[in-house]
């Protein structure tokens, strides 16, 4: 291999430039894919070892990971799998878009859980109060609006606190998560509870004309219209981010808050606005989940969407289109995990473990580090300093 100092013929140089350009443009897609692949390999080792050690099998079954992953894929590919993938993906895409928007502005919204739950309460409040007397043409949009508004309010609080007092949004959103968990418990045992029920529980949204329409699938395994809302939100957030002044300001504030402020942007207003929109998206995620698969709020109702949305946003590199695909991927993994547990005897929680492993490989930039090390071996200087690039990219 030629070192950097040797003179190369122009053709070879051009070819190298083209290869480099392709690598550069493919990197944002290749990095998540490599991270997913590596995580699946680690997961396979984990499945073999732990099923052998803990589940009482006498020997280590090398074929078990393949069986598990095939069962997962089979679960997704079945007709039921497709509808449930869409249902699982709906809140992940919606809330993921909100978290991604926050990342673009340099804000870390861990409050998805609370915003989701408060949005659920908002939608249920509409269903409980106006639902019985109105047709679903009025109740459904109203409930969605209320979910969005409640979610936005839940996001507004940490944004407002950060703008006015500098309280870090990570800590306030964590604390607010628990506050909203208890608000939800209180709501279903008090104002939203179904009278004469044996336990604190809300009414069924179907009985209140607030169920989302079913777009396809049979009655047992329907795909709800929430996915249409999620699909519509992707271009809306994309346009907001890349084609509006607000989006430009959000990205500027995320890239360099001081420069944005000196440039005359009202960064405090931006913080409040971005957190409110992020909350709105999580609130919508809560509302669509309630009005789709969940139907009523039962005791102990909770969600993992808030944290899953962080995975979705990171995996999608905070890009709305990327978030669409990572949301669908994670939704598919959730949908297939039940089949995997039944058919291969591998617990469905594997999906959560895989999520974390994917993220580890993603954030340490496994692909870029490997490419750089190879480049260093060849004698050329690394294209990007991995550590510096990571620091510069930060959460974005």
């Amino acid at each position, binding site marked *: 291999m030629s070192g950097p100092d040797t003179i190369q013929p122009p053709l070879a140089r051009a070819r190298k430039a083209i290869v480099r350009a392709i690598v550069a443009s493919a990197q944002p897609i290749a990095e998540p894919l490599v991270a997913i692949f590596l995580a699946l390999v680690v997961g396979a080792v984990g499945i073999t070892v*732990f*099923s052998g050690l*803990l*589940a*009482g099998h006498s020997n280590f079954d090398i074929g078990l990971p393949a069986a598990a992953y095939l069962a997962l894929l089979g679960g997704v590919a079945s007709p039921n799998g497709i509808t449930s993938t869409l249902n699982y993906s709906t809140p992940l895409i919606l809330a993921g878009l909100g978290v991604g928007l926050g990342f673009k502005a340099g804000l*870390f919204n*861990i409050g998805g859980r609370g915003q989701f739950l408060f949005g659920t309460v908002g939608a249920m409040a509409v269903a409980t109060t106006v639902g019985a007397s109105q047709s679903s043409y009025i109740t459904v949009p109203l409930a969605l609006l209320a979910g969005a508004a409640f979610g936005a309010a839940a996001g507004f609080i940490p944004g407002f*606190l950060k703008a*006015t*007092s500098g*309280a*870090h949004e*990570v*800590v*306030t959103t*964590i*604390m*607010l*998560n*628990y*506050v909203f968990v*208890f*608000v939800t*418990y*209180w709501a279903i*045992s*008090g104002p939203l509870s179904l009278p004469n029920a044996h336990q604190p529980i809300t009414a069924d949204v179907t009985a209140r004309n607030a169920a989302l329409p079913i777009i396809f699938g049979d009655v047992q395994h329907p795909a709800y219209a929430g996915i249409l809302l999620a699909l519509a939100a992707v271009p809306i957030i994309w346009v907001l981010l890349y084609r509006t002044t607000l989006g430009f300001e959000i990205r500027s504030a995320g890239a360099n808050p001081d420069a944005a402020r000196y440039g005359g942007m009202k960064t405090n207003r931006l913080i409040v606005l971005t957190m409110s929109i992020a909350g709105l998206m999580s609130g919508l995620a809560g509302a669509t989940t309630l009005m789709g698969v969940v139907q009523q709020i039962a005791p102990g109702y909770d969600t993992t969407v808030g*944290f899953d949305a*962080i*995975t979705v946003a*990171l995996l999608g590199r905070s890009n709305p289109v990327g978030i669409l695909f990572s949301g669908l991927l994670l939704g598919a993994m959730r949908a297939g995990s039940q089949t995997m*547990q039944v058919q291969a005897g591998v*617990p*469905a*929680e*594997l*999906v*959560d*473990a*895989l*999520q*974390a*492993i994917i*993220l*580890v490989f993603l*954030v*340490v930039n496994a692909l870029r580090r490997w490419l750089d090390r190879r480049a260093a071996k060849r004698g050329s200087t690394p294209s990007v*300093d991995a*550590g510096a690039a*990571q*620091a510069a990219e*930060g*959460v974005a």
Partner: protein
Amino acid sequence: MNGIPQALDALPILGMLFQLVGYVLSNLGYMSQTTVAVAVPITLAALCGVMCERSGVVNIGIEGTMLAAAFIGWIVGVAASALFGVGTPLPLFGVTLPLLLGLAAAILVGMVVSLLHAWLAISMKVDQIISGTIINIGAAGITGYLYTLVASQAPTGAGSFAQYKVPGQVADLPLVGWLINAVLSQGPIGLSTIVIVIMLQIMLFRSRWGLRTRAAGEHPRAAETVGIDVIRLRYRNVVMSGALAALGGAWLSMEQTNGFNADMTAGRGFIGLAAMIVGRWTPLGAFGAALLFASATGLSTSLQISPPAGDLGQLMGHVPGEFWEALPYIITIVVLAGVIGRSIAPAADGKPYERESAT
């Protein structure tokens, strides 16, 4: 309420306050034992946070670290009692070999999980919030996965540590007996927590290690110029703090209960973070905040078990139980927003340290 004249109780608002004080006083013995016990895992989580953040590393993965330790402590206890038998517990704390092995394994795992956080946050310079989030998601997923694998065989655990029994003569002492009884009626982890709080408070503000830790958290560059290896110090603090979080996890699965449940930490790692903030990043302050938070739980349990009589009972009946549970988090937000007693983090908290000579 016996000592308070009826006339005082009848006063508007103020009378209610008298009744509340009377109620708390008459239930104090019960409430303080619960309060100290509930405060143990919160305190340990908060101390873990203090050790990390004082050296400049934000750790929101405490919850996950505790969960991993709780699981490993339990499962190693299960395996050890299957291998060696449970044996006869010692009179002090009901210590058995499987329990000790479980505790050691829990501490080890807590340190390993923290090492992962240290590597991601310090060496890889990954955003520390993301690193902590990964640990939380991963710990919930992996423990949930493993628990589902073993739960089908309904394994029998190694049991749990026993409480220290305060001698009758001490517990019956006038005025202070009940308090000593309440504070000391804890298991080995609960009792060592109190010792750790005091030790850490002294070490953080009176020892060379403490000074260096605080320097690394406030101004790492200045610390480095006087010869402190900031990177190594941060690594050591984060890994050691994992042992504290692990003790909190082990308390859940080996002292409070004798088994493991999916997500059994139930937010204690995060409320520990809150205690750390309200306690202004000091061990004693964090302990105080944890006690304050735990007393809300103690009060609400007490209100459920023996509701007060009269007007107070009616008033308290209108306060939903969820309010008491949400109270610690609300207090934290109020403190963070600077409404009462502003709390300020170490200056270099959460910022990765880059050596000048590194590149």
